[in-house]
Every structure is written in structure tokens, then in C-alpha cells.
């Protein structure tokens, strides 16, 4: 009964309208099942999740936004989505419905520019966080993001990280659990192995694989166009 009530509640909330934005999911049950595994981690103290994809980058952006919607239904108020590029995928559509704000969580009173979507989450651009002189250590980054209950990292393509790992060091250290989004027929086994090996070498806890469908690519393109 509890699961059913949660499901009904989620459906109502998933169709929420932060101002005028409306999300309609094709696979509610899959989202709930996926979200539940992450929520169990959250209850055990994990609050920084990273998402990387092999083969099809849009899939990880959909996963991040979808999970953010789910965690809202779970009552998490402050959710941060940190992405490398806010100009692709669903982000432009979300940004349309957001307003810019500056927040400051750390002692140094360093302010971060965020795009706050009403009643949903804050979109944060990754580059300023990693390249600012004020945030040099992982401790400072943690402090900066301490005002968020949950941080979802939309990790840049891994070859980008591999090229200059020192730039992304703080991000890697901040991620407590990493999930790899694999798109059948686009992701190659070797690449999955390399990504897996890369993050394992840095001691990142790999949570598991999230499967995406190749068929959704066209829909994503349509969504981008409409955005």
C-alpha cells in the first residue's frame, strides 16, 4: 500500500508545473524503481551522485533531470544539478523556466551563480566551480555545496576528464557514487571498460549501470529542437 501511495503521489508531482514547465515521463515505473535505489543510498548518507554516459551523452542528462524530479517527490528540498554544458539537452528548457540567483554556503562567502527552478532544483554550471581561485580544495567545494541536501553531477565526457584530470579532481573527489548510463548499440564494451577503470583508479565508488534506449535519441533531438 505504501508503494502504491508513493506511486500515486509521484505521478501527481511528476506532472508538476514549476510555473509553466511540465514533465511527462514515458516510464514512470522504471523511474520509480531507479529512484528508489538512489534514495536508499541517500538515507544511508550518500548525497553526491555522479552520472556519466558512454555512447550517448543526452541519456545522462535525462537521467539527472528525471532523478531530480523523483527526489522532489521524496521531499528533498535543496537539489543541485551541476552540469558542464547547460546549453544542451533538457537544460535550455529548464533554464527558460528558471531565474538566476547567487547563493553562498561557505564561510568565505563565495557566491555561486545558479539557475533556480521554482520548487525544483538549482542548475549550476560546472566550469566556474572548478576554475575559481577561491575553490581550490575539495574541502572548499564541499563547503560551497553544503547548503544542498543532494548534489547530482552531470559529469563531462570522460575523455575530457582524462585529458586534464587535475581540473576535475575536486569534482571526482566530491562524487560519492558514480553511475554509468549505457546506451545499447551505441556504447562500446571497451569504452565502458576504460571509463570503469578510470574512475575505479581514482577510488570513485561505482554504483552500477543505467540502461538507456537508443530509440530515445530522436525524441531527445525533438525536445532539443522544441527548446
Amino acid at each position, binding site marked *: 500500500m505504501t508503494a502504491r501511495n508513493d506511486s500515486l503521489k509521484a505521478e501527481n508531482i511528476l506532472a508538476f508545473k514549476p510555473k509553466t514547465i*511540465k514533465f*511527462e*515521463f514515458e516510464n514512470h515505473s522504471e523511474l520509480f524503481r531507479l529512484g528508489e535505489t538512489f534514495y536508499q543510498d541517500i538515507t544511508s548518507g550518500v548525497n553526491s551522485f555522479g552520472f556519466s554516459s558512454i555512447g550517448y551523452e543526452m541519456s545522462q542528462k535525462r537521467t539527472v533531470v528525471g532523478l531530480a524530479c523523483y527526489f522532489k517527490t521524496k521531499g528533498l528540498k535543496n537539489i543541485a544539478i551541476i552540469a558542464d554544458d547547460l546549453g544542451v539537452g533538457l537544460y535550455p528548457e529548464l533554464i527558460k523556466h528558471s531565474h538566476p540567483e547567487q547563493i553562498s554556503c561557505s564561510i568565505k562567502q563565495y557566491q555561486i551563480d545558479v539557475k533556480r527552478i521554482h520548487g525544483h532544483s538549482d542548475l549550476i554550471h560546472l566550469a566556474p566551480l572548478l576554475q575559481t581561485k577561491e575553490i581550490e580544495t575539495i574541502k572548499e567545494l564541499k563547503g560551497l555545496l553544503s547548503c544542498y541536501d543532494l548534489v547530482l553531477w552531470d559529469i563531462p565526457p570522460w575523455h575530457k576528464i582524462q585529458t586534464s584530470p587535475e581540473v576535475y579532481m575536486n569534482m571526482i573527489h566530491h562524487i560519492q557514487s558514480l553511475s554509468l548510463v549505457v546506451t545499447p548499440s551505441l556504447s562500446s564494451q571497451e569504452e565502458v571498460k576504460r571509463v570503469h577503470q578510470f574512475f575505479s583508479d581514482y577510488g570513485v565508488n561505482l554504483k552500477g*549501470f543505467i540502461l538507456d534506449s537508443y530509440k530515445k535519441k530522436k*525524441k531527445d533531438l525533438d525536445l532539443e529542437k522544441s527548446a
Partner: protein
Amino acid sequence: MKKLSIFFHDQTILNLPFLFRLMTRYYIISTSLVLLVISYTTYRFLVQKTFYSAEMIINLHSNETVSPLATMPLPFGGSSSKTLDDEIIMIPQSRSYRKAVAQRLIKLEDFNSIDLRTSENDDYQDLKGQCKENQQCLSTLVIDRLPNFLKIESTAKSPTGYYFVISTFDQQATKILADIGSQVLLARRREMLVKHSQEQIRVNQEVLSGHQEELREKNFNQMTEDLRQLKSELASIQSRFPQTFSLFQQKRLEFESITQLHTTVQEQESLKLDMQHIGEKDRLTKLQNSIEKLKGDINSLELSFRTPELMDSIIIKDLRKDLSNKLAEFNSMKSGGVVVGSSNQNIPSHRNTQLEYNVISEQFLRISAEYDQILNSAKETAYKISVLENAIQKLEPVNQLIKQMEKRILELTVSASTIVSDIGFADTEATYRSFKRITLIKYVLFTIFSTVFLTLLAVTLRYLLDRKIYDVYELENNFSNLPIIGTAPSFKNVA
């Protein structure tokens, strides 16, 4: 290795669900291959030429083969039926048969319209054109092709076990070949049998002449003739023997009587003489006893052999010789004045007795000599006969073999002149039919198997070369240490 191991399964050996999944995954390859194979096989089936065949039942006129060649394995424990099979089945393959058929074919008016191609790509017409009506060339061309059209099959379907099968690409050619081929087949079979018989006769004659030469070298005929003469001679001797023997007996008895009488007379005469030789009396007595004993033996022998045979006569002859020696000794001692026994008062005069003794003694000696000559002659002839018979007996097996072979040659010669073919064709019409070399069902089966095989091969290779991940199954198989959490969310609409 992980990629390969996924193809195998503990229970089913091959991981069939995965293979099927691969076929659906690489559906373009699978579909293309299926279409390709089906198209190819359909095309091959449609373009293959139709065969026109005729089948004629061959009858064996006798269960027992008359073929000389077929009977050859019998003495060695072999089976004649197998040889007969080979003989009949191989007829269409023989060059002489093909040559005969080819020559009759070439003489036909329709020869140019007959299609004798052995395959769809055969350049028969070009080769025929190159021959330019050269009979030798055309004959060679046809001879080389005939084995493809004509054959005899040993099959249980036929009541007699044989079918004469003709198959060509041309209906007309099939009919003509059935007609000519069957006629030549019967003629060829008869020729074969005649040839085999003649060959057997020739071989028998060669062997026979060898044995005859052997006998000739050993003068077998002369030996036989000598034996015959010797036997005749012995028979003549034997025919003369009883008469001589009875005469000899008669003279001997006379001689013995006169000898006894003469002895008695001489004893009478010797009483007057001094008994100076009394010491020899005992010796004379012993000699006389010995003579009496010999006489008794001879008499008893002669009485026991009513029909005196040759060997018995020889024994008697020896005894008699001994007797005459002892008598001579006895007489010489007595002539010296020794008297044995008591005196006889009724003794004839000495002169008469002496005369009679001399006459009978002479007669006896003459008949005895004649008797001895007959016995010696018989003995010698019997010995010669024995020697010749031994020699002839050694050569007798060869002589018997020669007689048997002469008989066999005579039989073969008679049979060779009256040989007919031991096979014939049934009165029923030849069965004509048309068919494709590879039937539809074979093509369908081939298509199914080749499609499955090629598709599986292609998708397997494609999979092994493919570096992409396609489904949960593969992901779990290749990254078993990481769980699959779920599925990425998908948006219907964002507005």
C-alpha cells in the same frame, strides 16, 4: 574469451536464445542473407535443365549365369552373382559398347538435332561443329559423352535386379538412345559371352598342349603299348603253362618210377660187389631219406595245387632242382657199390631197365628244361609289367586331366557356337519421365540449412567483431561485478 563463452550453454551446448537474439540484433545481415540464399537457390532451381530419362527392366533368362567369367570365382569360394553384377553393370562403360552405340547414332539422319550435352555449360555443339562431319571425331565426341547418359543400375525395385537407365537433356535423344542402347547392349552381351568362351577354350588348349607335351616327352603312349604287348605275352605264356605243366608232371612221375626201378636193379647188381663202402651206407641212407622227403613234399604241393599257378610252379621247380641234385649224388654213390635197403627178387633185367631209364630221363630233362624256360619267361615278363605299370601310374593323373580337358574343350566349343545372351529386356514399355537433377525438396532443405548456417556464421562473426553493448544480457555477462540499477527515464514531453 568472454565473447566466445557466451555462445555455449551447459545444457544445450549452444546458447540458442543468444544466437536468436543476435539474429534479431543484426537483422539487416540476417534478413539479407536469408533473402540472398533463398534468391540464389530459387534461381538455381529454376535455371537447372530438365532431365528426360527412360528406364527399361532387364530380365535375366536364368538364375544360373552362363557367363564363363562369372563362374570363375566359384572354385575359390567366391560368389558368381557379384561378378555377374559387375559384368552387366559395366557394359555401358565399356569402350566397345560405347563405340558401337556412337557409330549407330552418327549414322542417324536426326543426329544433328540430338542434344548430347552433359551439363548446361557443355560446349557440345561447338565441339561437334569443329569435327566438320569427320566421322572419327564425331565418334570420339559421342563416345566420351555416353557414360553420362547410359547406365545399368542394380536395384531391388526391378524384379530381376537391373534397370537400363537413359537420361539426357533432350527428350528425343533419350528415346533414340534407349532404342539403340538396348539393342547394342544385347548384342554386346552375347559377344562378351562368346569371347569369354573362346578365350576359355584357348586357355584350356594351351594348358592341354602343355600336359600333352609332358606325356610325349616321357613316351607315355609307347609305354602303354609296351605294357599291352607284355600283358599279351604273359597271357600267352599263361595259356601254354597248364599243358606244359601236366606234361611235366607226367614225365616226372615216369622218371621217378623208372629211377626207382633202375635203382633197384642197380642194387641187385651191386650185391656182388664188395661191401667195402659199408661206412658210406649211413650217409646213403640219410640221402635216400632226404630224397624221399623231397618227393613227398613235391607230391603234396602238386596235389594241393589243382590249378598250378606261376609262383607255385617256381617253388616246385626249386624243390625239384634240389631233388635232382640229390638224386645225382645218390646215384653216383650207388654206382660206387653202396647198397641201400633190401634186395628184390622180382627185378627186371638190368639192360632193359637201363635203356628205359635213359629214354625217360632224356624226355624228362627236355620237358623240365622247357618248363623252366616258361617259368623264367613268365617271371621276367611279370617284372617288366610291374615296372611299366608303376611308371604309367605316376603319369596317370596327367593323362586323366588331359582327358577331362579334352572333354571340357569339346563342351565349350559346342556351347560357344550356340551361345545366346543371358539377359533381355522386359516386354513392358520403357518408363519415360522428366525431372530436375536436384529436386525441390532438396533445394528447400539446402536453403533452410544453408540459411541457418550462414546466418548464424555471419551474426557470430559480426558479434565477435562488434564492440558495442546491446542489452542487459551482454552487460551482465561482461561486467558481472557491477549491477544494472535500472533504466534511464524517458520524457514524453517537456512544455
